[in-house]
């Protein structure tokens, strides 16, 4: 409860983690607000079906609040005039200010429990944060947005926040690195997917570093780091200890 998890990938696609968390929290009966900026609803829906979760049903029952970034963006730019009382969550695209206040309000409203809700804790899932920078939001605005979300979701509502970002050591995108580094310092748990140090391999798709940031909550504790390797399959991802891939044994 009340945890901030950062999903980070370096030169690979960590979206399998997003799919995992989405189906995990839905199956656990939590109310999920999913800010999906990069892919369409049907993409997530099809993958979720393979993982055993029906997104459309969850949306209808009110368990899942889905913000499809691509569609919202088109509505803002090509749609008719919006109603004055309901600003679109991605309003910063058309305005000149790079503030993400409208997006935060959207998150807050969707996760605040109403009387007839019987779901367990709220969860905010974001895929992926680096896109906001590409759309013109300033890095400070993005960090502010995440900060407000943490206060609201983790502290006030005792829920969890899971965010995906891309980064790399020799990246030239300084704004992105700034955001990622700052988020790393504030996370309770970091799942870092990256390539093997030895290069491309067909049977082991990469390695994942799980960093439990115990030092965040308690001053004297050290962070715990575990490293596993993984292989992605059609319906599943298998994790195994380093060097023990099925192809080798």
């Amino acid at each position, binding site marked *: 409860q009340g945890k901030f998890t950062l999903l980070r990938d370096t*030169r*690979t*696609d960590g*979206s*399998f983690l997003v*799919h995992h968390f989405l189906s995990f929290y839905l199956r656990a009966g939590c109310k999920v607000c999913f800010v999906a900026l*990069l*892919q*369409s609803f*049907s*993409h997530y829906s*099809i*993958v979720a079906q*393979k993982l055993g979760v029906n997104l459309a049903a969850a949306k209808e029952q009110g368990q899942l609040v889905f913000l499809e*970034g*691509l*569609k919202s*963006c*088109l509505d803002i*730019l*090509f749609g008719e005039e919006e109603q004055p009382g309901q600003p679109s969550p991605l309003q910063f*695209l*058309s*305005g*000149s200010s790079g503030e993400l206040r409208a997006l935060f309000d959207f998150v807050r409203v969707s996760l605040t429990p109403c009387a007839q809700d019987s779901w367990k804790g709220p969860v905010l899932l974001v895929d992926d944060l*680096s*896109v906001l*920078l*590409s*759309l*013109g939001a300033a890095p400070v605005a993005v960090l502010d947005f995440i900060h407000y979300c943490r206060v609201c979701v983790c502290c006030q509502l005792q829920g969890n926040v899971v965010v995906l970002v*891309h980064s790399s050591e020799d*990246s*030239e*995108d*300084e*704004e*992105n690195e700034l955001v990622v580094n700052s988020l790393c310092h504030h996370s309770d748990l970091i799942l870092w*997917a*990256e*390539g*093997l*140090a*030895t*290069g*491309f*391999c*067909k049977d082991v*798709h*990469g*390695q994942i570093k799980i960093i439990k940031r115990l030092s965040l909550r308690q001053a004297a504790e050290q962070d715990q780091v575990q490293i596993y390797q993984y292989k*992605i*399959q*059609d*319906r*599943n*991802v298998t994790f195994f200890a380093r060097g023990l891939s099925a192809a080798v044994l």
Partner: protein
Amino acid sequence: LVFTEEDKYGLYSNLLFKYFLAEGIVCGHDLFVASAKEHPDNILKELPAPLLDDTYRKELGDEAAVVNSEDFQDSMKIAWRYQNLPKMEASPTTYTKFGHYYDVSKKMPPELCQSVKWHSFYLHEELSFEPKMKAWNMNSGYARLLQSIQRIISQEGFDGSDPQKKQRNVLRIGIQSLGSVLWGDDVCCSETPEDPHSLTKFLYVLRGLLRKSLSACIITVPSHLIQNKAIMERVTNLSDMVVGLESFIGSERETNPLYKDYHGLVHVHQIPRLNSLICDVSDTKDLAFRLKRKLFTIERLHLPPDLSDTVSRASKQDLAASAKLLSSGCGAVAMGKRHLDF
């Protein structure tokens, strides 16, 4: 959304662009061509002619027959372990139903061009920005292009908005040299462009339009001119497939014996991972292309056999160094440091 990084002089990426459009015509798809450099009418006049099945198969058949008759009964004596491996095919010899082949030396017949509906967008001919649109915060050239695409998609019903239209078709969009100075964007001129977000915003909106409709798009970009690498990283993130073409013209690789049969390299930086957890990663990542008199082919890069009598150390090291520079993988499967690729 297929994002192509142009080679230095734009020769080969132009060819790839034309192939995409030609395939659209042959398949009966509608076309939308946008450019700031050449008038789309001219682009369409220069598409390669499709090869009819029979003639191509015959040509390939001849080549294959010659090869087969030579080593028909040859069993390997020294490298016998390799006998059991499947024969590596450098280029497709069996005719597959997917896609068509084109003859680069001939132009597409005009009646074939006329058989599909096509729309064009030539930046310098477009009317001025419609005043009733809200502030877009984007380069006006890009904004106009997006408006045009959106208008075609909704008018022609590619987004399924017209339920009465029985036959649904696919729209192939080709955008040439995006990001170049001709579009009014200075991202290729300076490291700190005036509006660094124009290109990425454009791609995001385009991605939204593509996802919402039955369309596919290829964009060519002169990425070697873009000095701000952060933008390239963001753009890669926003595209489904990223392919880079590197031609050997004018570079030191032209004389490198490793590459003597080829005209350039194909770098696949990213492949689409849609509707699934996994993506289709091919076995080999080293691809090279060559432009023969009639065909443009992309094949696996294989080292020529080292048959020289006087093998000097220097040249061998050179070859090894160039081999290491070959593309070390695409973004969809994790890339690490490049020591061993197996």
